[in-house]
């Protein structure tokens, strides 16, 4: 399929997704205590992942997944919180990757 066909098929949906992201970031800026929110591990990972989107190497999806993943190798000792957050939260003593 020619790439221009992919633009025709997927531009409207992704334009809408782009605006959702813009509105999400504006919302954080608009609400009180924005500085605190911008220090949150999820927000920081999100911004880092956004920068990957401009790398034209065809590996953006994998790189975004990796940027949001736990980079450690060892099992955790016990489950204190069974929730998944979508971004890795460094623990005490973990390097902030």
């Amino acid at each position, binding site marked *: *399929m020619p790439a221009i066909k992919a633009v025709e*098929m*997927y531009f409207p949906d992704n334009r809408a997704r782009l605006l959702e992201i813009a509105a999400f970031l504006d919302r954080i800026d608009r609400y009180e205590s924005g500085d605190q929110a911008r220090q949150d591990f999820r927000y920081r990972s999100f911004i880092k992942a956004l920068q990957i989107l401009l790398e034209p190497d065809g590996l953006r*999806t*994998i790189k975004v*997944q*990796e940027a*949001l*993943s*736990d*980079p*450690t*190798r060892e*099992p*955790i*000792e*016990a*489950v204190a919180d*069974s929730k*998944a*957050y*979508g*971004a*890795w939260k460094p623990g005490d003593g973990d390097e902030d990757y």
Partner: protein
Amino acid sequence: MKIIDPHIHMVSRTTDDYLALAYCGIHTVTEPAFWAGFDRLSADSFYDYFVHICEVEPVRASRFGICHYCWIGMNSKESENLSLAHQVLKMLPEFLDRKTSIGIGEIGLNKNSRNEIQILQAQLSIAAQRNELVLIHTPHLEDKRKGTRLIMDLIRNESRILPSRVLIDHAEEHTIGEIKDNGFWYGLTLYPNSKGSPERAVDTVEIFGSEGVCINSSADWSVSDPLATVKCANEMRRRGHRQELMDKVFYHNPNQFLSQCPKFKAL
């Protein structure tokens, strides 16, 4: 078009959903044992659940001409409770012997803890002793890549299990390469928020090829869609892929993997 959904939790779906599956050509489904949306308090609850997926769901499905199979296992989320998990493990052989039970699953990891690993190892040992097919649940979101690697290490350490008899499910772009390199089958789950979309699943087939992949809805009690496989097939059609490729991905591939269990016969 005929489709096999190799991962769908029909205990959580309405009878209308069975009718919709039948209308759309999804006439064979397999249901893995999993977390019910809450942590169960006793092993008796698991016993009833296993009866439900071994006995009740095949009857519900058959009303609509659908063939229902199940996988039996202790899920990773509740494996953190070792006392409960060990009681459940003792029940597994009874239910693995049932005529519509085709293997151990979905077992795996949730938060990559040592307790989860202990219970996964025990179940891999049961699978090896009984020569069962294995369906693996990989962790969600940020825990997926690490968990997938830990799981593959554990399976490789159980030399009696052939990778070709293991399907590692909920794979995503960052785990597929390593799964394929190690000779396992992999599953793509179409689940709106925490897993993949039809568009990304078709991208994956285009990038990684059509060998060794099974696509499923994993429809359950949460936001999910029992017709997601049909919608994904339609996305392939929309992009101009051949019907033979769609048949391979949505029917022949799952049939090839699941038919390694002699109890399994696809409609």
